[in-house]
């Protein structure tokens, strides 16, 4: 699993990369109340805004961590945004992306480096 400085996690699953936010991020956000997911088939470039989430505190954007195509989104989050607080590292993934350049993953932190990053 890899981690971005934007507090996303990336997990390679067959030929796609699953993207979610970390436990740390979900704690910082507070209770999530709204999620807007991208459409399946959308071509995204790294750092494009991919997901909008609103918590009880504020709105935040989740950026696409890689260039590629969105192949699947987690529709369950739309009806139950609270899952993002309950299980951010598991059930509450946001989308799956078919990366054009899987080597872009190399830029990101491993778990130990991420733990250092969040202190």
């Amino acid at each position, binding site marked *: 699993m890899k981690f971005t400085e934007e507090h996303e996690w990336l997990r390679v699953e067959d030929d796609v990369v699953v993207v979610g936010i970390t436990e740390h991020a979900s704690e910082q956000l507070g209770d999530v*109340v*709204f999620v807007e997911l991208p459409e399946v088939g959308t071509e995204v470039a790294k750092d494009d805004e991919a997901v909008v989430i609103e918590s*009880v505190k504020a709105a935040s954007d989740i950026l696409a961590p890689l260039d590629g195509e969105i192949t699947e989104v987690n529709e369950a989050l739309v009806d139950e945004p609270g899952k993002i607080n309950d299980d951010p590292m598991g059930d509450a993934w946001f989308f799956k992306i078919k990366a054009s350049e899987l080597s872009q993953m190399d830029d990101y932190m491993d778990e130990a480096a991420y733990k250092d990053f969040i202190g």
Partner: protein
Amino acid sequence: MSDALRQTPLHALHAELGAKMVPFAGYDMPVQYKLGVMKEHLHCRAAAGLFDVSHMGQVIVRAPGGYDAVARAMEGLVPVSVLGLAEGRQRYAMFTNDQGGILDDLMLANRGDHLFVVVNAACKAADIAHMRDGMPGCAVDEITDRALLALQGPQAEAGLARLVPGVAEMRFMDVVVMESDFGALWVSRSGYTGEDGYEISVAADQAEGFARALLAEDEVEPVGLGARDSLRLEGGLCLYGHDIDEGTTPVEAALSWAIQKVRRRGGERAGGFPGAEVILDQLENGAPRRRVGLRPEGRAPMREGTEIYAEAEGGAPIGTVTSGAFGPTIGGPMSMGYVPSDKAAVGTQLFGEVRGKRQPVTVAALPFTPANFKR
């Protein structure tokens, strides 16, 4: 450090309870505890929530002529009937400026020989200066050795009455002084959540013991400023500096109910407060815009600053959201804002621009959740 954050008498207790602290109006205040904003909000609506509101200003105003003299002087600063307030009763008021705008909103209580005033934290220094300036012959004393707690929710009565039995008999907006194991408590049956409950002023050195005794009860959980904000917004209550400010009049702000007949045109003590011309004229002829409740479609909150449009496309903004959040009790987003009076009828379909897209929003009755006061 002169700009160091101030602490309330419950600061150490907040830390012990695992609060997340934020700067608010110059104080280091708990925004949430371990339950989190959503659960704290729901707990307050279902049982009882304990809030530290010690940052708010507690002020006593006295005059040699007793309550009537103080009340007459205060009526020179607010558009409400202070003389008509019975002993042991409290009333909502606002300081106005010469343009009819609101300098702060506050609570006034007739405590027999003096007036007890509770003002917003961010405005308290200005409010005290304003009272000293505008109430000649009165002594204006800020109370700095007492904490202020709020216990709010349908089980607040049961929770507080276990420690202070006399409070069960109080009605909404009653104020009393009660002796207790925690010294003299200044209790009012009021609050700012839309729920039944109490605000309790307690000596600073007794505050932690009192708070611990309340928190030891099954009904009571600590609630932070985060849920206080969503509770008051569901309750349709204004937050100063957001929903009301120097540029909004009480009539525009839909607070006309707070201006008693005796202070209106034709009343025995009509006018005589700053901005009376503007406010009394608006009471008779209406104001150009009005604060309304807004229910966005879908789940996305329309937050403060969201521009409101009459049409789905084109045209200039007709209004602005002044508070917006997700309402845990109503299970959806809610906002308040100002729109032209001819667009203020409940059910009017408008549009709010969120992330560049106009989303439908409907003018809704306030409060969003029914008030649960013990009248």
